[in-house]
């Protein structure tokens, strides 16, 4: 099993931390993992992306030109990464703020209204764990149990009180993802 994933969106959306949770979750299941961020003068509001690889074999290149899955959270990232999903791969996006929807027919496309759902739940910070849960529903590369462990590992101790909410969001994310017809 090898999963090459890109998560792309705005800085501040939790793109890098979502990748980090996933990478730690992979480690919990003894997989090889790599986490490679785009870094730069990219802060809240700018674009940010991270490439995460999870495999049962050693990972050669941490940099990819095609992805098994793309999680896309803003229009700029859609423009850039839609074409980089492998044929037969998966594209997951939040419809919020997307003006040009993906048009490819050779990949599976899913939507999740995570921005809206996080707002409805009264905690915008659950946005990225909702998405993570949605992703794991369609691409169960790690178990939910490992993900909860990965979540705990990637959060600093002072944030551990938010663990139950985030675990619930991961579970709930799996319920609200929809395959686009």
């Amino acid at each position: 099993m090898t999963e090459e994933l890109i998560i792309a969106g705005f800085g501040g959306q939790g793109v890098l931390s979502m990748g980090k949770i996933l990478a730690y979750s992979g480690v919990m299941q003894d997989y090889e993992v790599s986490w490679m961020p785009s870094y730069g003068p990219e802060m809240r509001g700018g674009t940010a992306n991270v490439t995460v690889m999870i495999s049962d074999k050693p990972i050669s290149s941490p940099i990819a030109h095609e992805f098994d899955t793309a999680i896309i959270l803003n229009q700029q990232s859609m423009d850039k990464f839609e074409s980089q999903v492998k044929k037969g791969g998966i594209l997951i996006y939040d419809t919020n703020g997307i003006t040009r929807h993906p048009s490819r027919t050779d990949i599976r496309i899913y939507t999740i209204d995570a921005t809206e759902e996080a707002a409805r739940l009264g905690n915008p910070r659950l946005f990225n764990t909702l998405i993570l849960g949605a992703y794991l529903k369609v691409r169960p590369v790690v178990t939910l149990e490992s993900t909860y462990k990965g979540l705990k590992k990637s959060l600093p101790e002072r944030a551990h009180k938010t663990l139950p909410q985030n675990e619930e969001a991961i579970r709930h994310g799996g319920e609200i993802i929809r395959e686009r017809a």
Partner: protein
Amino acid sequence: MKGNEVIAEAAVRYGCDGYFGYPITPQSEVMESLMEMKPWETTGMVVVQAESEVASINMVYGGAACGKRVMTSSSSPGISLMCEGISYIAGASLPCLIVNVQRGGPGLGTIQPSQSDYFQATKGGGHGDYHLIALAPNSVQEMYDFVGLGFDLAFKYRVPAMMLADGVIGQMMEKVVLDDPRPRRTDEQIEQECGDWALTGKKKERQRHVITSLELDPYAQEVVNEKLQATYRLIEANEVRYQTTATEDADYLLVAYGSSARICAKVVEMAREAGYKVGLLRPITLWPFPGKPIAELAGQVKGILSVELNSGQMIEDVRLAVNGRVPVEHYGRMGGVVYSPGEVFEALKEKIINKTK
């Protein structure tokens, strides 16, 4: 763990005596992690944010003169500022570790990954006839391992060692196996190991030790140079390190180090799937350079592609080794742009495979 964080972890676990640095992207996490770890409360390791890179390297010079295991880290423009000090340290035959997490240049350049300091690391950097032992890690694990290896080699030969990493490995996270922490060396151990040169406090029974890189008598300076050169020949004979992947039956060879070698490992997989017999040689020591194994492979392959994140620097050493026997071409990106495995594969086909059929 992240590549940069692992440097800090490795330094403390190795029993490093002091780190002196000045922040610069993409390696600021080295000092940030050390400040969080507070090793001065546990092992007694000193961590100082100096007022500049020039100050940092001179603090390293001072620590090294006392036989202490001291290090600094920076990124390309910061390393340029340190080059005067590095030359002095080399001239005074002192061991230390310098980490360069390279970014794009010249000048202040970009903050994204690059390998454009190859010449600086392997051909000098500062003035005068000197060499650094230059280690190129290709994973977070090697960033960890090469802290210890760098110190060990530096002390074995009394030369400065440089770890030449880049922004990709510095910023990425991977699994790392850490070893058990070692205590810092005691004064007695330093006396035992470095007693014939280090400034450990003059004892009645011995002559004073002088650490200097200045010699006004040209004939005496030439003796210093000859000693240094003899050390460099010894290092060339003993310390060449490299790794080969799928070279046994290779028709074509990739030569790449650091993060580029990771990308090229993927290119080997892609090329083999497509039916091309491609192998990879990864220099682990950039100086001393593994010219011999490359020369041997030149007798077997039809062509060689040297792949670096620069305009073509290591290719000069590859061509020297190959000595015109087979075509050697370069592929690179500059300015902080990183190629994908697919791009490198296309370049390999265009520049080597299609031209040597």
